[in-house]
Each structure stands twice: as C-alpha cells, then as structure tokens.
C-alpha cells in the first residue's frame, strides 16, 4: 500500500473512531443531565401518567443499551433522528441554522486573518518600537475581552445611541431582493466584529512572535544580503515560515465554526446552530443535541485533516516527512 494511501486510511480510521467516541459520550452525558425531556415540557396539567406516556413516545422508557443501539443504527444510516419538541428531522433543524453560523463564523475568521496578519507583520517588522508596543497592548487587551461584553457595548453604541446598525437578528423581515442582502450585511457587522475582536489578539501576537524569529534566521539574512526588497523578504520568505503556528490557530478556530459562536449568536439573536444548541439544552431535546454535537465533532475532524494538508502546502519538510 502506497504511503499516501496508508496515511489516508489511518487518518480516516482515526476520524471514524473520534466520531464514535464523541457521539457515545454525548449520548451518555445527555442522559446524566438532571430531569428528562418530559419534565422540561412546561405544562401545569401533565400528570405523572401523562409524562410517562411522553417518555414512551420518545423511546426513553427503553433500556439504555437499547436506546444506544437504536441511536447508533440510525447514525450509521445517516439518520440523526427526529426532534422531540419540533417533530421534524434533526437534519432539517440543523441545516436551517447552519448557513447563518457559517456566514457569521466564516466571515469573522476571514476578517480576523485579514486584520490580524498585517497587524502581526506590522509589529514584528518594528520590534520593541512604539507601534510594536501598541500592537502588543492592543493584542493582550482584546484577548482578555468577553464576547457578550463586547457585543452589548457595540449594541449600545452603534445600535442604540448612533442608530447605525440594527439591534439583533440576521435581517429585517419583509425586505427582499437587493435590499435583503444589504440588510444581511448590516446585521452581520456587529456580531462579526465582536467575534473578530476577541480572536484578533491571538493571531497578531502569535504571528508577531514567530515572524520576529523568522526574520532573524540565516535565510532571511541571506535574502537581505542579496538585496531583495524588504517587503519581499518579509512577505514572501519570512512570513511563509512564520505562518505555521498561525495555521494551527486557524485550524483550531475552524473547528469551532459550527458551534463555537453560541454566546455571540445569543447576544445578537443570530439564528445559528449555537443558539439552536442553547434552546435544545433548555428543552432537553436529546436528538437535536446529539445531532449538533455529531456535526461539531465531524467539523473538528474534517478541519484537522485539512490543517494537516495545509501544513504540507506551507512547509515542504512536512510533505517529505
């Protein structure tokens, strides 16, 4: 078997094992939570008998092993089950919310990279000078921010005081066509900037540290000695090597793309998967939670594989190893 195929098979096997582990842990953890879905249904007239009927309808009166077997069997057939509370397939519940989450977290990640990398380069190319100090203070400052705090501050300033941007949601109901796209963008600005701000520091500071190191390497000295333009030395030679830890950071953040914006989505009433998870927790909607966590685990596994591939592209040593 060629090494590449062996590598792929090994990684795939590990991915399947990870998914099984994550789905099993989720299955068990949910059943360890206090209460049960029948109790979470808030109806003052539900007798013990009525709640037992409900547990039977949900299949929760069966032995744990039977429930687990059915769950795994469904999962193997690509079936995430039916939501207890909404009576619709979990896949449709998640798919309805996924685009909004991808839009929010994807655009914030791109924005973070677009701002964070130049900021890191700016600091690294002027080490220990005023600009570098400013970037460091800024980086540490934004790293210590808490998303809800940033969100509420931005809402207060740009929503309530200046009336520049809307308070919450993903778009204004009742607008269509081009106006709808404008509405989507205006609603995206504040949650996207909030997420970007709290992630920005780690990108700028990580890149600054590794780029300063790269700029002191022999190959950079040689490139300078050859008379290459400073920008080419920095952006083409030093930055490429310095990007490896940042790539890991991107990989880690990508892993949270699907469910990592729970707080942001909650503060801004953004209709994504994170807010869906929050609501499913309060309702103890096991199938939705199980489906959401499988989706999360699958995203992390997939992104880890992609990060490995990106390493190969960025660093020839990884390719030949």
């Amino acid at each position: 078997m060629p090494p590449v195929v062996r590598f792929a098979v090994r990684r795939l096997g590990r991915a399947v094992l990870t998914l099984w582990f994550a789905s099993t842990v989720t299955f068990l953890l949910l059943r360890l939570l206090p209460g049960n879905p029948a109790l979470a249904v808030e109806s003052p007239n539900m007798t013990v008998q009525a709640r037992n009927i409900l547990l039977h309808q949900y299949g929760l009166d069966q032995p744990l092993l039977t429930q687990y077997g059915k769950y795994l069997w469904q999962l193997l057939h690509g079936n995430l089950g039916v939501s207890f509370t909404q009576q619709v397939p979990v896949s449709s519940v998640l798919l309805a919310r996924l685009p909004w989450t991808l839009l929010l977290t994807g655009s914030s990640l791109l924005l973070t990279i677009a701002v964070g990398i130049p900021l890191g380069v700016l600091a690294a190319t002027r080490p220990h000078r005023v600009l570098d100090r400013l970037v460091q203070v800024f980086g540490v400052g934004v790293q210590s921010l808490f998303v809800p705090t940033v969100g509420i501050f931005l809402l207060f300033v740009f929503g309530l005081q200046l009336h520049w941007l809307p308070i919450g949601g993903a778009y204004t109901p009742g607008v269509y066509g081009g106006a709808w796209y404008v509405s989507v963008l205006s609603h995206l600005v504040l949650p996207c900037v909030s997420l970007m701000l709290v992630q920005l520091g780690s990108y700028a500071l990580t890149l600054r540290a590794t780029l300063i190191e790269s700029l002191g390497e022999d190959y950079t000295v040689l490139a300078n000695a050859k008379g290459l333009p400073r920008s080419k030395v920095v952006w083409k030679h030093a930055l490429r090597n310095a990007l490896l830890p940042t790539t890991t950071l991107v990989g880690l953040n990508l892993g949270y793309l699907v469910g990592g914006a729970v707080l942001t989505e909650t503060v801004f009433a953004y209709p994504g998967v994170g807010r869906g998870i929050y609501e499913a927790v309060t309702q103890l909607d096991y199938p939705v939670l199980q489906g959401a966590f499988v989706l999360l685990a699958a995203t992390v596994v997939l992104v880890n594989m992609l990060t490995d591939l990106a390493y190969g592209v960025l660093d020839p040593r990884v390719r030949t190893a």
Partner: protein
Amino acid sequence: MRARFPIAVVAAVAAAATVAACSPAPPKSGAGGSTGDATLTIATTTDVVNFNPLIGNSRTDDWITDLMYPRLLTIDADGNKKPYLAKDFGYSNPTTGYFDIRDDMKWSDGQPVTASDVAYTINAILKDKPAGNTTYGQMSNVVNATAPSTTKVEIHLSRADSTVVSEVGFWMNVVPQHVFEPNGSVAKFPNNSNWVSAGPYKLVSAVKGQSYTLERVSPYPFAPNNTPTLQKVVYRVYPDINSEILALKNGDVDLIGNSLPPAQVKSLQSTAGIKVQEAPGLGYEHMAYNMNHQPLNKLQVRQALAHGVDYNAIRSVVLQGQAVTTGSSPIPPVLKDWVDPSLKEYNYDPNQSKQLLAQAGVSNLKLNLIYSLADPVSSQAATIIKDDEAKAGITINLQGQERNTYLANTASGNYDIYLGNFAIMDDPTTNMSLTYLPGGAINYGLVNDPALSGLIKQAQATTDKAAQKQLITQAATSVHDNVYDNVMYMQNLYFAYSNKWTGFTVKPSELLSLLDPQSLANVKKTG
C-alpha cells in the same frame, strides 16, 4: 500571489452561496382585504418550538398559533369565560357538555369552521395524547366528542365534571380536520408549512431564531368590517427582555410581547415614545411546604413559617409595588366572582412564629428551599424569605437551581419548601383539583386531606354555579387555615409598546395580554 486570487474567489462565492441559500422569497399576497397596509412588529424571547397548537411548548407557539386556530372561549378582564368561536356553552345534563359554535368563521382555504373540526380536535387529543397539551390533563372524565350538527358539539363524560366545558373551551385551539386528519397522529404532525387559519392572521413565513411573519385573513368576524386592521404581524426573536427593550427604543419593534421585569417598568413609563400598559396577572407566586417531610406535617410549624415572612416587603422591594396580595388565598383577586374577601394575609410576626414553634415542640428548625435561578423575582424573594425567617429562629438553606434541575427536584418532591409561580390559574375548581388533590399534577405540597378533597370533588361534580362557589370558598378557606399552600401575591403585568399604535384591548395574563387575536385584529396606527 497567483494562488490568492482563486482562494479569494472561492471564499466570496461560498459566502454568497451561503447567504443566497437563506434568501426568502416574497410571500404571495392577497390573503386579505385592503383596509390598511400597516405591519406590527412584536418582540419575543422564545422561538416557535412547534407550529402544531396541540403540542404546546413555548409562549411564542401560543401567541402565533392563537392567531390562526381559534379557541372556543376567551376570557374577559375579570377572568370570566366569554364566547369566541362558541356562541353558547354549558351542560345539557351532568354528563353531557355542549358548545354551539358560530357559523360565520372560515378557514383561509375557504372551508367553513364546523362542529366536526371541534369534535375531531377533542377526539384526536384523547387518542394521540400530544406532548405538553394542556387540555389533555383536563379530559380525564371525557369519553369522546360528537358533532350532531355543523354548529353543535357535544362532549360526553364518564362522570359529572363541571370544569370540562370551560377549560376545554378556553385552553384548546380548534384545528382544521381536513388538514390535520390526513397527516395521522396529531402528536407527530409538525404542521410546519402550508398553514391555514381561521383567525385574523395566517403564518406565511417562518425563519427559526429570526422572525415569523403573518398576513391578514378575512373575513374575520371580530374585526371592523370583517377585515383585520393590520396587513402583517411580525414576531421577531430576541435573546432576552433587555435586548427587546433596546429594540423597542431603537424602533426595530413596536411592541414587546413578554411582560416587563419590575425594575424596568418605571424607567419605560418615563421614556418618550413608549407606552406601558398594565394587565392583571392570572397566576400567583407561592411557597409549598412538603407535607411528607417532618415537621412540616405539623400545622403549627407551617403557620410559624407563614407568619415569618414580610410579604409586603417582598411586594414593595422585589416587585416594586407591582403586585397585590391574595389574602393568602389560592384564588387570584382578578377572579372577582370567586374571591373571598374575608380571607386575610398571614401577618408578619416573628414572635408569633417563635411561639408557634415552641407550641409544636420544634427548635433549631432548618429547611431547604428550592427555586429556579431562571426567575429573577423568585431569586430576590428567596433572599428576603431567608432573612425574615432567620428573625423567627428558622434557618432556610437557599437552593437556587438551574431550570431542569429545579423541575426534576420538584417532580420528585426533593425539597422542604418549593418556591415558584403558576402563570395562569383561570378556573379555581380545576386549579384546586390539580394543586390539592392527592396525585394532582401540581400538588407540590403533597397535600392529602380527605375533607379538602371532598370539597373539591363536589365542586367539580356540580354544574350549579352558586353551589360550586360555596364549595370552592370553603376549600380556599381550608387551604388558607391549614397553610397547605402559602400564596404570597399576584403580580400585575406590564407591557411596553410604541406610542405610534393604539386600539389594543387588554386581557389578563401574559398569554393573552395585548396579543389576544381580537386585540391584534383591531389595533391601528395613531394619526
């Protein structure tokens, strides 16, 4: 640099495709008349969980489905049941209830609303037992329902039960048989598209976590000229009441559906452009003492606990004066026909509490009190209760709990004192049977008093209103005197809306408030 262009293009295309996937199509218009083109936007803190009105889950579910699926009865400002879809209701004999329904209401697809729809809905609930259906709990004595004519519904009972007609009439939304029946069990039908409505508005678009848009339906007999005044009603979802208030101040919404927290009422009353409307509550905040735990099974101990709390302080500090006493009676004062003014609130007297404990031979009393951390009013009240009871020598161990833990402990009776509230107690007879009969769904005090049970069961059985009132008054006195339940207050509710709107009618409780279908069918813009 060559590689960056395609990556940027791919990212841009992916982003555009993601957004485009969510782009809504303009709804088809023409469902209603041409009176007005106004849109009323209402803020809510919960998503619609299920569009099937027979599977109740969240307050927003109720608000939206109420606009499409009529109830047989509604309630007036004094808590009396009044006709809505039903023109007349009552009992033709002790085991047969009836509704005579209107003949001028239609579903939006042109089908008339008939007695068959009503009978189908009752029978489907009985057969399929949908999750969380409030009406099912009130149907324990219902055998079935029939429709002898297109406007007459009969409910057949296994034994006399005077609560069925009023409770089924008030709590049950009637669904269209021709839409629901072909979809099988009502417990599993999500009803998440192609809605039909016999209310003033019909759902045309639903984006989970974002907004729900309803459009006018006519004819609707409770609107001027049979045509609801609004073209659209939009519900927008916000994470909490504070975001809703920001949105109202910002002009993003016209009305907040949820009642305001006490601390926000005065501030909004003095905010330009915003009106605050008071509506009576229909429930109460109470403490239930676990009668299965010693020494709470002793009357003197319960009396000592009841006299150890300054309820007036709770109402004035925590509720900021936005609550009224019930006289420690389980009948909220809004139900004027049922209230017994002779019942007086347990007076705050720590010395009396100490004497009662001494008489009971109890010292160093230590009790656990559970409450939900999701309820800020309960959380603050609990602190006052703890401090007050300490003055009477009683140690209260506060156990604020996450909602599901609280519900689990409540269900298993794992507490000495339960602190919580009931949102809607619209019918004293029904509510007392749920709260004080052994095995009752919300009998959190685990009360088991044969004399009290006898009174409640007699009240259930009689259709003579005067006799029923007498029995219920005796039962309420028994609950009061035996401290089977310690009802602390009924909270008045406050709702905020933009002063650009007028014409709301106010009904008790957060369920109806300003959002009752008849209210929203008549509301209009000022000027």
